[in-house]
């Protein structure tokens, strides 16, 4: 579990995030949503320690990450996996070497054991047999899945995903969402996703934190978001007529007026 308490971050005189508190639970996908410039990425960077907040605390399973010394932070970081917006794969390494990198750095396993683990996670993200390819030879969706494989190769307790669906087609986005959701449930990972993909919000958002101009404007579940009266949130999520119609449809489903027979697993079948 991750607890964020009253986080504030300034760059110069500009307050980028202010008074953010949230609780992200194990086995759930917690989504941070908001318009560009609302402070989502800064919040996530504060949570993983890439930025130091000016105020407030972040707790990993009750241990204050912000108050830890460098050595203790390093230990926590070994339990963190992160999927970056641009995948952040190492260009000069093959897929296999990319995924094996954390294993090489932090385990004393034999090469055979490490290779077995690499193949297991590659299989898990449905990319078996691409071990020797370089990142430049992969599509955007494949890169994201390889990056996800690298993020989970050390069995992290915490998984952070920064815009996992950016630049991907809707079908591939669903594949990534399903993978993240399944991995979260299988390994009871505390997953934090930074997104403005509405499909993700509606399909995998167990807990949703809406940010507006650096502040927490709303929080709740994907069911509650349908019935929210928050104007900023509604303007952001249901921005088009199509999405407004979708919202109305969901409201009818949630109130039992029409049946809901959608299944994310079936939706991504070829």
């Amino acid at each position: 579990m991750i607890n964020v308490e009253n986080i504030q971050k300034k760059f110069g005189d500009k307050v980028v995030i202010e008074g953010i508190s949230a609780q992200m639970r194990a086995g759930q996908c917690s989504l941070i949503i908001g318009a560009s410039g609302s402070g989502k990425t800064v919040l996530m960077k504060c949570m993983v320690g890439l930025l130091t907040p000016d105020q407030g605390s972040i707790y990993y399973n009750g241990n204050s990450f912000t108050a830890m010394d460098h050595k203790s932070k390093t230990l926590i970081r070994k339990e963190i996996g992160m999927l970056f917006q641009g995948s952040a794969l190492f260009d000069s390494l093959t897929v296999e070497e990319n995924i094996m990198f954390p294993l090489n750095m932090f385990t004393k396993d034999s090469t055979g054991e490490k290779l077995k683990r690499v193949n297991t996670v590659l299989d898990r993200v449905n990319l078996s047999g691409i071990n020797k390819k370089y990142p430049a030879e992969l599509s955007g969706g494949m890169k994201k899945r390889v990056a996800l494989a690298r993020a989970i190769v050390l069995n992290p307790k915490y998984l952070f995903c920064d815009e996992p669906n950016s630049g991907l087609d809707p079908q591939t986005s669903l594949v990534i969402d399903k993978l993240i959701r399944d991995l979260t449930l299988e390994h009871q990972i505390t997953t934090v996703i930074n997104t403005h993909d509405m499909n993700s919000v509606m399909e995998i958002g167990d807990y949703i934190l809406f940010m507006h101009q650096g502040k927490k404007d709303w929080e709740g579940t994907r069911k509650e978001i349908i019935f929210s009266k928050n104007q900023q949130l509604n303007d952001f999520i249901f921005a088009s007529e199509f999405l407004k119609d979708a919202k109305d449809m969901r409201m009818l489903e949630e109130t039992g007026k029409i049946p809901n027979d959608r299944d994310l697993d079936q939706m991504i079948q070829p």
Partner: protein
Amino acid sequence: MTFLSDIGRFLLTLKGMFKKLENRQMYGKELIRQCTEIGFGSLGIVAIISVFIGAVSTIQTTYQLVSPLVPISTVAEIVRDTVILEFAPTLVCVVLAGVIGSRIASELGNMRISEQIDALEIMGINTKTYLILPKIIAALLMIPLLVIIAMALGIWGGRLAGAASGIISPNLFDKGLMSNFIPYNVFFALIKSYVYAFILSSIPAYFGYHVRGGALEIGKASTKAVVISCVLILFADYALSALLL
């Protein structure tokens, strides 16, 4: 102000490199990779520059030595000392600042922009130690070797040009090489090469590591790194010559 803050950040970056290694084997592999890229990767250009510099030195020295009172073997002495004292360490390192410096700055800049450095940080790896330290150590190991090779090839190039143009026979050139040789000159050239190696690896690493923005900023950082490295190499050349000769 920016200049002072850059110096401060540069020193902090250097200080940040000296942390406990997470896995010695991985750092060793990275060091070997860097030695290969810096050493073997630059061998071709060093060889070409050295041979031609030696050859041109022989021809131009002969052109300027018009007095019949000066024995022709003096040409070899002048070429030897010029190549050892100045051309091999300084000129080669100025060229290497362009070749290696731009590669280091753009590699690290690209890693920064594409969040690869952040990815390493998240894994719990000290990125300054993993990415910068092996490059500086590799430069300190390989560049003095390249400078020694440049000395040998420069003198050989001079001998070759002397023979090819009929200025000085190989025997006379060899005789000139042996006379009035001061071993301290080689020692001095090696000291210079260590200082230059540090400059041309650490400055580009600093600029590349701290890039902010996009592809344009990588190019700017790379150019800035090369220009500053070259200026510092020339300044160090003057300072070391004034101090040690």
